């Protein structure tokens, strides 16, 4: 049997579709999630309202100048932005860096190492810049290794970056459970607290820290590189047509290496700003999957740096809102996760409709073909 519709590729991605499809996807996800919530015995509308308030706060709170919920969403968005920017620029060149989580961990590790052990040798005003450089370099080095393997030996970067995540995550776990564990920490898995000079400045009495500025600056930097510079031109040629790049004398080796230094470095900065801006120690909870969520951020943003900022913020809202309904609605943690999953599933699945369209062709009439067939037989005989 033939289906009465066909899925065709659009010649150009539709502008109206790229606007409405995400909205429709979100609505569908909410309807789907609503059914699940009903099954779990919760009122969907109340739950969604609680999520929104959890992520952004209420007008009453805003009137009183309380922006706690909103600021927490921004706090979660910062590492997503930095990792998302890093991942997206590697993806632009078809280098599938899925190792942002490990690069983030190594950035956090290096920054923490500087804060914990070198603080006494470095003047206070230089401590944060040193941590910044250390965090960037550590992430960059962690990204450089798979880049070198890919560039010179054609080793698959997906496997290498993925596996190196586990090395990095387990390495920092070893440190804060073992040698770096704070003796005065009551057995809590974490290092000693950093000296005050190693704390990133925070804004307006919230936990929003200077990492936000890093992320915004990184987005501006990437945008300028992509649209104004020779390097950006080469990255785009490689991303669109690697064979043409080779033919045009553009070095793949050099560009893979450079791009992964930047990509890993940005993820490393995310780790640095987490330890220096939020936890002020190297502790459990640094690697909670920002590096993986960043892959989704990059895709949903279609690798556009401004899009990454926006999508990172919205996904952070989803995370914070999900946490909130666990507390305020007494819903099991899994419900929040299912909702998050459903929204992502519908958003990513819906993206197909911006590039493809469904064309109704009607049910086939059996009779017409049969008549034609008999006709052909009589005539050809």
């Amino acid at each position, binding site marked *: 049997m033939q289906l009465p519709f066909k899925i065709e590729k659009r010649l150009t991605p539709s502008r109206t579709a790229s606007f409405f499809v995400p909205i429709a996807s979100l609505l569908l996800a909410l309807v789907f999630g609503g059914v699940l919530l009903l099954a779990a015995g919760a009122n969907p509308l109340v739950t969604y309202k609680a999520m929104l308030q959890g992520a952004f706060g209420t007008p009453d709170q805003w009137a009183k100048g309380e922006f706690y919920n909103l600021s927490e969403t921004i706090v979660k968005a910062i590492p997503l932005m930095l990792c998302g920017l890093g991942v997206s620029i590697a993806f632009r060149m078809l280098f599938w860096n899925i190792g942002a989580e490990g690069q983030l961990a190594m950035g956090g590790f290096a920054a923490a190492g500087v804060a914990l052990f070198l603080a006494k040798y470095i003047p206070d005003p230089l401590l944060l810049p040193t941590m910044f450089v250390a965090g960037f370099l550590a992430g960059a080095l962690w990204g450089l290794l798979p880049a070198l393997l890919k560039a010179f030996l054609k080793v698959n970067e997906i496997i290498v970056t993925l596996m190196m995540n586990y090395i990095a995550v387990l390495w920092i776990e070893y440190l804060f459970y073992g040698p770096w564990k704070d003796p005065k920490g009551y057995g809590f898995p974490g290092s000693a607290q950093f000296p005050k000079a190693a704390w990133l400045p925070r804004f307006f009495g919230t936990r929003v820290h200077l990492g936000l500025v890093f992320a915004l600056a990184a987005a501006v930097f990437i945008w300028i590189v992509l649209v104004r510079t020779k390097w950006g031109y080469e990255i785009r040629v490689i991303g669109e*047509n690697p064979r043409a790049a080779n033919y045009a004398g553009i070095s793949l080796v050099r560009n893979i290496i450079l791009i992964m230094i930047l990509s890993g470095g940005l993820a490393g900065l995310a780790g640095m700003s987490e330890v220096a801006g939020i936890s002020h120690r190297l502790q459990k909870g640094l690697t909670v999957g920002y590096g993986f969520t960043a892959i989704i951020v990059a895709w949903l943003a279609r690798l556009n740096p401004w899009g990454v900022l926006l999508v990172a913020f919205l996904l952070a809202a989803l995370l914070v809102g999900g946490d909130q309904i666990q507390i305020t609605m007494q819903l099991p943690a899994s419900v929040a996760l299912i909702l998050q999953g459903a929204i992502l599933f519908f958003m990513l699945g819906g993206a197909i409709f911006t590039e493809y369209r469904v064309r109704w062709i009607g049910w086939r009439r059996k009779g017409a073909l049969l008549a034609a067939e008999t006709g052909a037989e009589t005539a050809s005989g």
Partner: protein
Amino acid sequence: MRGIVKRFPGVLANDRIDFDVRAGEIHALLGENGAGKTTLMNILYGLYRPDQGQILLNGRAVAIHSPADAIRLGIGMIHQHFMLVPTLSVAENVALGLPSSRGFLLDLDVVTRRIRELSNVYGLRVDPTAMVWQLAVGEQQRVEILKALYRGADLLILDEPTAVLTPQEVRELFATLRRMAGEGHSLIFISHKLHEVLSISDRVTVLRDGRVVKTLPTSEATREELARLMVGREVLLRVERSPVELGDVRLSLKDLWAHGDKGVPALRGVTLAVRAGEILGIAGVSGNGQRELAEVIAGLRTPSQGQVEIDGMDTTGWSPERLLKHGLAYIPEERMRDGVVRDFSVEENLILKDHVDRPFASGIFMNFGTIASYADRLIENFDIRTPSRDAPLKNLSGGNIQKIVLARELSREPRVLVAAQPTRGVDISATEYIHQRLIAQRAKGTATLLISEDLDEILNLSDRIAVMYEGQIVGVVDQREATVEQLGLMMAGAHKV
């Protein structure tokens, strides 16, 4: 086919086309790329559905929704790219997808017997037990024709069937086609090669811009008239080549060996020299090492042995970037894959390769102002038909895309030019223009290596012609002494006589 209309977004691919084929007739469908030939045939074969119009088969209206319907109605199509499974035998390929007379069991002996019968009737020499990967291109094409005949095709559509054949194979194919027509089969022969259309068909229908310009009996047609109908104006079929003083040897290849993508030697000791002001044509059936030869010279493939010298310097193993600076220009065979970036604008494509240097870049930044004025100049000088320099390249026609590659490569005033299949898939007007440009470049003293499967092109442009067969140069002949017959024999591996 009556009043066929097919719209694609932004294009009217077929505009009220009336087209008919009689029993026992070879009807040629002639037109440039984009004229709507393939669209029309895809409608007949059920790959597209027309927006308007109807198809009548033996006087009855039929609805063809899929190739399966078309086959059931006795319509067969031989595509330009063969649809065969290389690891299966000829008989297995023919039987593929058909019900077996023994239910679940294969009945290959029955199939084999039937193939032998068909081979005899139509003069299609193929061994049914041979594996498809062992067959030459011409033989594979015969398997495709057998497949269609086996399925009971009365009406056979052949889409540019001669593109991959040597002149001798073409002659053999034409004999088969005539025999099929003699048996009462109807054949539609799609082509843009005028002399083939004139020699094989009974009637010709010329399409231009999605419309039928004229249908006429072949006996009343001339080459010049067909070209005029196709293009819509008078066309120069031959380019004027004035004699040019030959200069020093600019490109020299010495005993060049290289492996192909599958690891087997694709070049087996090629030695050639091209002088300033000379066009050396490389003729040959595709897949005889021409692509590898071009890639080795352009620095995209490392030779296993031998030397490339450009302007007296050993450039073997140089990077494409370095060769570029040394004065080598390269028009790649697969321009969409290797030569351009589809999603980039015309202007961005025009500076590919030159983007690193002044005046297009200073420091780390690109100079968009300079790039824009440069692009405008090239668009005008090379007659590139584009809505603007910012238009995405993928919206342009094949001919205009090739002009972009040509503009980019020639505006560098190269000392050596390697042009691989410069007019493949390009319409007549653009071909004419590209030929004139290559000749003009010759007058300026560029040494050109022209690689082409189109013998007419080779004969038209080259000063000397080298024939490649299985990675070797079978012989080099002077253009004034070369004949199609002799080149054809050499292309099939016979040494220079």
